[in-house]
């Protein structure tokens, strides 16, 4: 497992949300595809690419893409 490269993380998030680009300050709830399916995809991505398990409650408390990246990073440490 590699430590996080933020642009790469945002790109992975963009693929899950089926958009061109995700910026650090973007609010996740503003994406059409931010729903229970994409949450599962994020859990899977966090596990397979970063080796961490995020809980659903933790994801619910996240507001922006940067918050989500921070959550994954914090778990890696």
């Amino acid at each position, binding site marked *: 497992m590699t430590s996080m490269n933020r642009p790469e993380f945002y790109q992975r998030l963009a693929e899950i949300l089926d958009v061109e680009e995700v910026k650090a300050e973007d609010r996740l709830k503003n994406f059409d*595809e931010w*729903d*229970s*399916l994409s*949450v*599962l*995809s994020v*859990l*899977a991505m966090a*596990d*397979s690419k970063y080796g961490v*398990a*995020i*809980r*659903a409650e933790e*994801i619910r408390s996240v507001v922006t893409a940067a918050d989500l990246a921070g959550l994954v990073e914090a778990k890696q440490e």
Partner: protein
Amino acid sequence: MGFIQAQGSFFKNEARDRRSSGCSNDANMKCIFRNKRINAILSVVPAQQSRFDDERSNYNLTEEKAGRMKKMMGLDRHRVAPPGVCSSDLCVYGLQQLLNEGTLKKEEIGALLFVSQTPDYYLPPTSNVIQGRLGLGHDVICLDLNQGCAGFVIGLMQAFMLLDMMDAGKVVLLNGDTASKLVDKHNRVTYPLIGDAGSVTVIERCAEENAIHLCLKMDGSRHRALIVPGGAFRLPSSPETLKLAEAEEGVVQSLEQIHMDGAAVFNFTLEDVPPQIEEVLSYSGNSKESIDYFLFHQPNQFILKQMADKMKIPQEKLPNNIVGIYGNSSSVSIPVNITHNCGKQLRNGALRVCLSGFGVGLTWSSMVMNLGPLATCQTVDYEAA
């Protein structure tokens, strides 16, 4: 579990030394079973089929979102028992077929195990009801086991233990679940995934050692991750527990239906199951390459693909197609996976397989064994008499 070690080998009188079945003494629950084999597996599914595309309007899903869900979870169609058809009916149908075709004789049955979460009654045990319906002898041991997704592997464990103790006879393991009766058809989280099914597995002694390895873990502190909260005795049935409420859009449920914490179950499956697979492989002296098939419980295609990737198992060795053909039938999903995907191979030859069931409890159990050739290994449709 220690009593298994106390059981002498059934074959102790034979010249060759065969050790008895036994469990290890370390903290991990690991067991070896010897001189036992599966003789036949028959899966029974209701003939009635329901298609996700036709159900979409029940879930308030946009076409786009339904499409994503269908693709990600691998949904297409599933089998749903009509009203009045219980798990036991599917199992009796299968057992009757094995008796009719001569694969099994009534007098060979020493024990009847019924694994289900959808019994006929609170009491008596459904296994007794089935014994009576089939006119089996009074010497047949009847036992019901309340187990879900891990219920096939746990049922096999119980069957092997019984074979160690019984004087003679075979064990018939019945797995049956009609989860369609525990979910609302307006619940997009549960209804599209579930499927109803029953299976009959015949387990017998054999002269060859045929060592079977099992690793088993349980974590009751997470029992709420998959639960029917009401309708039993902790929260008895009342107008309140029967009331349907929309938890979120497209998720309608009552307290007497299955509640699933999807993310918790997902994390459990990815975190706890792969290490157990590694453990049972090394315990049984196998590598991923020496296993022909990883025949797992079938919750949905997405999680099974994630598991295969995580464990670096080729997708073709870990089938994930059952949920989109029959639906997830809880403890019956492994037998359905076996009969649908490996029926022909197992009727004609043998395979080394790794079975794994994980879910309700939470419970996770994995087993490595040589399977086949089997007298019967097929999937049949249930047609009401």
